[in-house]
């Protein structure tokens, strides 16, 4: 029998896994998802708080913008679920970024609605819902990381992570 071995060394194998582990791709995925989702909310808020009836072309532009934002959100979601799923600590960071971005978007949406004098409450409710989702994600991410850290300590893996 000839002695066969894997062609790739451990180092080379890890190098080949780089696309899945790349920090840049993770940041890009989170940015695409957040920009897409919050952009959708922002454009929808702008459209809905328009004071008067809009001409057909403007409505078309709004609709195209919405589709564009949704496409980015779908791309980011696909990256994060299929291509570069985040590890526990990265999820915590991503969730805090999402929470901060949601708060800023909500504040901007509410300010615009207030300036236009068209229904602040529905915009506020929508913003609150987005912030609540981001907050839930942050709480879950923290809980998952805490559980892993606890298990790590039980297994004798020390505190650092």
């Amino acid at each position: 029998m000839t002695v066969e071995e894997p062609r790739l060394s451990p180092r080379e194998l890890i190098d080949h896994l780089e696309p899945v582990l790349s920090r840049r791709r993770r940041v890009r995925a989170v940015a695409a998802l957040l920009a897409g989702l919050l952009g959708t909310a922002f454009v929808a808020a702008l459209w809905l708080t328009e004071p008067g009836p809009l001409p057909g072309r403007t409505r078309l532009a709004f609709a195209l913008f919405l589709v564009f934002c949704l496409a980015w959100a779908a791309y980011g979601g696909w990256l994060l679920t299929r291509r570069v799923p985040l590890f526990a600590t990265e999820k915590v960071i991503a969730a805090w970024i999402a929470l901060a971005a949601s708060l800023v978007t909500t504040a901007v949406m509410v300010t615009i609605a207030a300036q236009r004098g068209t229904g602040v409450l529905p915009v506020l409710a929508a913003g609150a819902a987005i912030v609540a989702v981001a907050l839930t994600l942050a709480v879950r991410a923290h809980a998952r990381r805490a559980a892993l850290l606890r298990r790590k300590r039980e297994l004798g893996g020390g505190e650092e992570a």
Partner: protein
Amino acid sequence: MSDELLVVRAQLGERAALAELVARWRVPVWTYVRRMLDAERADDVAQEVWLAVVRGLPRLREPGRFAPWLFTIARRSVTDRLRAEYAEYAVREAAEPEPPAAEDPVEAMADAVADRADLVDALAALPVPEREILVLFYLEDLPVEECAQICQIPAGTVKSRLNRARRLLREHLEERGHRS
């Protein structure tokens, strides 16, 4: 350091732990894939397995059961390549049900094959499902329950397949002039 601790650390995002996990399981994964597929495809498929493992690792809920999870992923990639062979086997199995497991497969295997090198050589001659069970149970040292989980078959079927595999191996080795 245990596999579970490495998995937990890797799930937290520690790259060093992930690298160690890959280094530790690189050869077992490749061995399984290589015994199931030809040399040309083995390296590519093993790499594909590792991509799927790293992508799935954050979602692994039971870090203590890393090995069966890893081989389930490896088996999926191998099965994709061997669809025709598995389909053929299913037809044959339906026509000729497996005999019940009569002996303890661990003892029986030690009895049938004295040398690991002989086993590896003879494996290539076996039908895919028998070969798969032998590789998982004998080369990868996985318990019957984990083999059953990986192959999605009852533990009884694992044992009967092991027995049939042992019989086939013995016949094959005898043909080549070996005596068990």
